[in-house]
């Protein structure tokens, strides 16, 4: 019974955590693509 009561909190915390990280990653990649479009390929020292 207690476990059922607390389930929304537990699941909520996992959703917020993983969802937050996922959203951040998507946003970061969008920024990366936007910046990369304005640059030639050779300006990436890591690749």
């Amino acid at each position, binding site marked *: 019974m207690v476990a059922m009561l607390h389930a929304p909190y537990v699941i909520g*915390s996992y959703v917020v955590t993983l969802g937050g990280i996922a959203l951040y990653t998507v946003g970061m990649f969008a920024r990366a693509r936007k910046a990369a479009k304005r640059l030639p390929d050779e300006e*990436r020292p890591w690749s």
Partner: protein
Amino acid sequence: MNLTSSSSSSPSPSPTSTRFTRALGVAALVGIGWLVLFGLFLSPNDRVQKTGVRILYIHVPSAWLAYLAFGVTGLSSAAYLWKRTRNLQWDRVAGASAEVGVLFMGITLVSGSLWGRISWGQFWTWDARLTTTAFLFVTYIGYLAVRDLGGTHQQRAKRSAVMALLAVLEVPLVHFSVKWWRPLHQNETVEKGKLNGLMLFSLFIGLISFTLLYVWLVIHRQRVLALNDQVDDRGLDLALAARREES
């Protein structure tokens, strides 16, 4: 990170990817899959905390990473300010780490208050650790705002490096003042040694996978910052070239 070279023709979610980051990303993703599997399904309920203990498998790792991230920001800022190691790369690492740290700290605060609601019956207590964490969160949001103030890359780097070191100075002051302010603070509810094998294992998976995730995010983020810096430089070069042609 010149470990491998990736051809631009290979399908990649981001121009900041290399073979190394892809491998790291897959490892982090697998780790998180395991974390969800063990944390939510395979590990047992705690005798005292019941199912609430499951929040700790993400709360503790994200708190640890948030503090690690701010530590990295402080060290990179010091490395930038020190003349012999001065390099804009340090500044970008500091900025990337602070941003990822803010993300993890936000997660820490949300998951922590959900856990507190179950364990203490309230979302928040004015305990020194909680309050310091909240202040740290706001301080680094301010740090990120300072990074966006504009100016040359060198100005930004110097200004934000000083800010980062001031933030390091602020942390103990806030911590001890809050500690003295409310001396009767809530002790840790989870006593050490009370977690059984599978629970410790879940926590361990959380720590490993979040650390991999942190490294992966920071590598990508600082590369995005490098790209943005190059876009700025290029914009400046183009503007200068255009001006030269006019005259």
